[in-house]
């Protein structure tokens, strides 16, 4: 991969993620949604809440 191509690729990905182009941003977030139980409640939460 040339340096120029690598820069182009980086800029493209940056633009897509920052400006929400074509894809939902959540695709790039690795945090998953979970069900966590506490007493009689089953919380629908995100990994980032923990």
């Amino acid at each position: 991969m040339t340096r120029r191509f690598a820069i182009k690729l980086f800029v493209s990905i940056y633009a897509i993620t920052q400006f929400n182009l074509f894809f939902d941003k959540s695709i790039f977030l690795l945090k998953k949604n979970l069900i966590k139980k506490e007493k009689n409640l089953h919380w629908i939460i995100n990994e980032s809440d923990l």
Partner: protein
Amino acid sequence: MIIDAENISDTSYKVIICGSGPAGIAVALDLEKKKISSLIIEAGNETYSEKAQSRYSGKMIGRTSNDYLSESRLSQFGGTTGHWGGTCRTLDEYDFLQWPIKKKDLNIYLDEACKFLDIKNAFGEKKLNKNLKIIEFQESNLRIYDKYFNYVKKSKYINLALNTSIYNVKFENDSVVEVIIKSKKTYSIKNKLLVLACGGIENSRLLLWFRHLNPKKFKNLPIGKYWMGHPFKLIGTGVADNTEIKKNFKNDFHYFENYMNVGKFTVNISPSYEFIKNKKISNAGFFLTINERNNDNFKDILKNLLCVAPKLSNLILNKTLNKNLSCGLSIFSSWEQDPVYNNSLFLLDNRDDLGIPRIGLKYNISDKAILTIREIIEELGHVFIKKEIGRLAGFDFLYDKSKFTSDIGGHHLGGTIMGNDSNNSVVDKNLKVHNIKNLFVAGSSVFPTGGHANPTLTIVQLSLKLSNFLSKMI
């Protein structure tokens, strides 16, 4: 006009209607518009009477108490509209997949049905995402007694016999030619067209009884089978940013004032057909209600969340302390129980004062019904995370059916279901009992599936369709 059972003359009516609830009254009023006379036989009095009501007690087999059978319905003029909640909505188009008719077949009666119930014909929908939508209900204040009793008293075409019960029917070939009624005495009256409109339990009870007395008739019909309720429960809770909720769920729909006495802002949500199909679930209505702030419920929810999601709890706590934005949520649901053959009504050995066997109901919620609300609350929970609205939690019984305590709700559906095949249905698409020429059933007992919407609006639409059909037979 009001008449005594002993003074009923054969020439004074063309149609006999048993029951004066929304189904029966809607048929009678529409026949009157077409100048067709009817006789309404009402087992109850003009208002509540212990004697008539006592005939509704029976036995439940399942998680629900026996009281359900007598407390969820009323035997009086106007039927259960004497104490109903008044919430109305049309069924969804996909609720008709197992029906022999389509939504468009009932749409032509929608305006008239809304006028009958004194509601606006406005049942809006707004997409929340591809899986969920915000939906609009209307609220009716109709009490049939208040609106129609005096009207019926003065009517030339509607004859009303109170405190009079149907006891038996007599056949000639495939037609009901005589109806045996009981009031102070027993009388026999001639019949041309007979409509059973006695409610979602009594219609089955009477047909089961008629079959007992006339064993050769109604032979293979699944009377009493596929009975359904709408489970109604508080199914979950949550915490949310008050302003984000109002922003994300903004709509111009009719809203509930102080829904279930817990909150002033309620959003109604239901699944899209795509979601129902993909997840193999049934239909449901969710009532997402913002609780009054500073109540104990909110503090308890927050404490519970603190244990599973400390980072998030801190964030919410800061918001609560600094910006005064957070709130607790209550999620109620009224949802669809899929038709199950063994959820059924049956006759007991003991009898009421008229000599008719009391009713038994065997009912258990299905796994599919539990899965339905679990899938929907989880999807809604994902929406809350994605849109940064807050977090939701479902109660234990959504994940462990053994913890489900019964709450069928007040809607009685099925038991005399509609269909094209007499092996698995009781009435045809015109609500005529299979293989009998002049016996019809009106009411929610004919629903082959229940959807999630409160049934009364659909009951009235079906009754108007029936009246139209009957008028062509006369």
